[in-house]
C-alpha cells in the first residue's frame, strides 16, 4: 500500500466518524493554539520591553543610586547638580550628561487640570534622552541657571490642559507656582509602562525648589560613539568614586537592562509554553484513546484486510497515518487559530502579542510527533492482531 493510499484510507476513516474525529482533533487544536497564543503573548511582552529600552538608545548609560539588582529596594539619591557639572567637564567631547528628578503633581491651567509627572531636567535632557520639540523650544542653560519658571509639555499633557488651544506662552500652575509654557514635545508613546506624553518638563533647579530638595534622582550619560561606552563608564566610576562609596551608585547600560528584563520575560514565555504544552499532551492522550477505540471497533476490518493480503506493517501504518493525519489537521487548525487569535489580541486588547514563527513550527511539529508517539501503540496493536481471531469477532 502506497503512502498516498494510506492517507486516502485514513481520511475515509476520519470522515466516517465525523463527530468523534472532530472532538479528538479539538483536543489537539486547543493544545497547539495555546502554545502559539501564549508564546505570542510572552514574546509580545518582551518586544514591548525591548522596544522601550531600545528607545533610550544603545549608547545611553543610566547612573542610579544604590546597586542595580532585581528586587533591590530603591535607594535615596545623593546626586547633585555638582555631579552633573563635574561629569560634564570630565567627559567633554565624548559624552553629554543630564539628570532628572520627578514627582507626581497636580498641574492646572485656565482650561484644565491633571495629576501628572513633573520632571526637573537640565537643558541637555532634550538630546540625551531624546525629546524632539514639536512647537516652541526646550529649556535652555539660562532657564536652568536662573531657575526660571518655564515648562515644556508632553503631547497629551498639552492636550489635557489646553484642549485644542495653542499652549505656548500660556500659564500653568504647579504646587502653587506659575510656570509659562515655552514648548511642546512630539508624541512619543508609552515605554516600559510610562506614558511619556503626559510628562511636564521644568528646569531642574526650579523643580528642586518646587519639591524642596537638593538632590537628583538619576543621571543620564549619552556617548557620541557607542565604542566609548566602556571608557565613559570607567570615567563616571572614577569621578563619582571621589564622592561616593562604590555601592552607593551603579552604572547601567541598555544591554544590562535588556539582560535582566529579557531573562525574566524568557522565563515567563517558557512557563507559558510549558503550560500550553501540557494541554497539547492531554490532546495527544485523547488521540491515543480514540485510536484504541477505533482499532477495537474495526477489528473485523483488520481481520479482513489481513485475509486479503495486508501485511502487519501495512495495517500498523494505516492506523499510524490515521493518528498523524488527525493530529496534523489539529496542528494546522490550531496554528491558524493561534496566529489569528494572537493578531486579534494584539489589535483589539491591551495584551501585546507577537507571533513567533518558531512557535508555530514547533507546535505543528509537536502535534505531528504527538500523533506518531500516541498513535504507535494503538497502531501496533492493530498490526499484530491475529486475523483468525479478528475475523471471528462480532
Amino acid at each position, binding site marked *: 500500500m502506497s503512502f498516498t493510499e494510506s492517507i486516502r484510507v485514513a481520511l475515509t476513516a476520519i470522515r466516517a466518524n465525523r463527530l468523534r474525529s472532530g472532538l479528538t482533533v479539538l483536543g489537539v487544536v486547543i493544545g497547539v493554539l495555546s502554545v502559539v497564543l501564549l508564546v505570542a503573548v510572552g514574546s509580545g511582552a518582551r518586544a514591548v520591553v525591548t522596544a522601550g529600552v531600545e528607545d533610550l538608545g544603545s549608547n545611553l548609560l543610566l547612573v542610579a543610586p544604590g546597586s542595580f539588582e532585581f528586587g533591590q529596594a530603591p535607594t535615596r539619591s545623593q546626586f547633585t547638580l555638582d555631579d552633573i557639572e563635574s561629569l560634564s567637564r570630565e567627559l567633554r567631547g565624548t559624552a553629554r550628561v543630564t539628570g532628572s528628578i520627578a514627582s507626581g503633581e497636580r498641574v492646572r491651567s485656565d482650561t484644565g487640570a491633571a495629576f501628572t509627572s513633573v520632571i526637573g531636567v537640565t537643558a541637555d535632557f532634550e538630546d540625551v534622552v531624546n525629546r524632539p520639540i514639536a512647537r516652541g523650544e526646550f529649556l535652555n542653560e539660562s532657564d536652568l541657571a536662573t531657575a526660571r519658571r518655564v515648562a515644556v509639555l508632553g503631547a497629551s499633557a498639552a492636550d489635557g490642559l489646553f484642549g485644542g488651544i495653542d499652549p505656548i506662552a500660556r500659564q500653568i500652575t504647579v504646587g502653587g507656582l506659575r510656570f509659562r509654557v515655552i514648548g511642546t514635545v512630539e508624541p512619543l508613546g508609552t515605554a516600559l509602562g510610562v506614558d511619556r506624553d503626559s510628562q511636564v518638563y521644568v528646569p531642574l533647579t526650579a523643580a528642586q525648589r518646587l519639591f524642596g530638595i537638593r538632590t537628583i534622582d538619576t543621571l543620564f550619560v549619552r556617548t557620541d560613539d557607542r565604542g566609548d561606552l566602556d571608557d565613559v563608564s570607567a570615567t563616571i566610576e572614577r569621578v563619582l568614586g571621589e564622592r561616593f562609596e562604590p555601592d552607593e551608585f551603579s552604572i547601567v547600560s541598555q544591554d544590562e537592562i535588556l539582560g535582566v528584563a529579557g531573562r525574566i520575560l524568557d522565563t515567563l514565555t517558557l512557563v507559558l509554553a510549558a503550560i500550553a504544552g501540557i494541554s497539547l499532551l492531554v490532546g495527544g492522550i485523547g488521540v491515543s484513546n480514540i485510536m484504541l477505540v477505533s482499532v477495537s471497533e474495526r477489528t473485523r476490518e483488520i481481520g479482513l484486510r489481513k485475509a*486479503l*493480503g495486508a501485511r502487519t506493517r501495512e495495517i500498523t501504518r494505516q492506523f499510524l497515518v490515521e493518528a498523524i493525519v488527525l493530529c496534523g489537521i489539529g496542528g494546522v487548525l490550531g496554528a491558524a487559530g493561534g496566529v489569528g487569535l494572537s493578531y486579534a489580541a494584539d489589535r483589539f486588547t491591551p495584551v501585546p502579542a507577537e507571533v513567533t514563527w518558531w512557535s508555530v513550527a514547533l507546535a505543528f511539529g509537536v502535534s505531528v510527533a504527538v500523533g506518531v508517539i500516541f498513535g504507535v501503540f494503538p497502531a501496533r496493536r492493530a498490526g499484530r492482531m491475529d486475523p483468525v481471531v479478528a475475523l471471528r469477532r462480532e
Partner: protein
Amino acid sequence: MAEVAAPATIIAVDAVTRSYRLGTREEGVQALRGVSFTVAAGEFVAIVGPSGSGKSTLLNLLGALDRPTTGSVRLDGRDVATLSDTQLARLRNAEIGFVFQQFHLLARTSALDNVALPLVYAGVGRGERVGRARAALEAVGLGHRLDHHPTELSGGEQQRVAIARALVTGPRILLADEPTGNLDTATGDEVMGLLERLNTDRDTALIVITHDPEVASRAPRQIRLRDGLVVDGDRGRVAP
C-alpha cells in the same frame, strides 16, 4: 471442462494437527487430530461436518491464516509452516480468494473499492485497480452496481461483490466459508451457481465449507470431518 489426465496438486494436507490452549490448561484442545488429503488444481471440493468438527480450523489452515501444530499444509507447493507472516500475507493475496458467510464488505466503501482492496495490497496502481475491479464485478453480473455501497445492495448482491473481490487477484484457490449461510435458498442457489461457473471457467480450485448437505452435494467430492478427523474423504483418508 474435461479433467486433465494428471492434474497438479494445489493443496496438500499431511497428518495435520492443530491444538489450542484453553486458559491455563497444559494440554489444550485438539481441533484437528491428524488430517490428510489433497486437492487438485481446479477441483471443486466440499468440506462438511457438524459444528465442532474442526471445519473452521481447517479453513484457517487452507487460507494461510494459521499454521498447523504438527504435520504440513502445502499450498501450491509451499509449506505454510516455513513462511513468515509477511510471506503468508503475500500468499493469501496472490493465491487465495476468501468468501465469507457474513460477506465482510467494508461499509461506506463502494462496491468497486471493496473489490479493488486486495489489489491495493498487491501494489497495483490505482488506474489498473479500477479496471480490474470493474472487470471482476462485471464477471459476477454487477457491472451496473459499481458505485453502490454495501448497504444499498441485497444479500445476494453483497455476496457477489465479495466473490468479485475474491477473484480480482486471479487466485488459484477459492475458499468459501458457508457462502450461502446468510442467504435464502433461491439466492443461495444463484451464488453457488456463480461459484461453480467460476470454478470451471477459470480453473480455480473451489473449496466450500458447509454444514448444509444440499450445498455439499453439489460438489463432485466431499471431505467429511468429525471430531477433528476425516471420516470420509473420497481420495482423502482416515488418519491412523
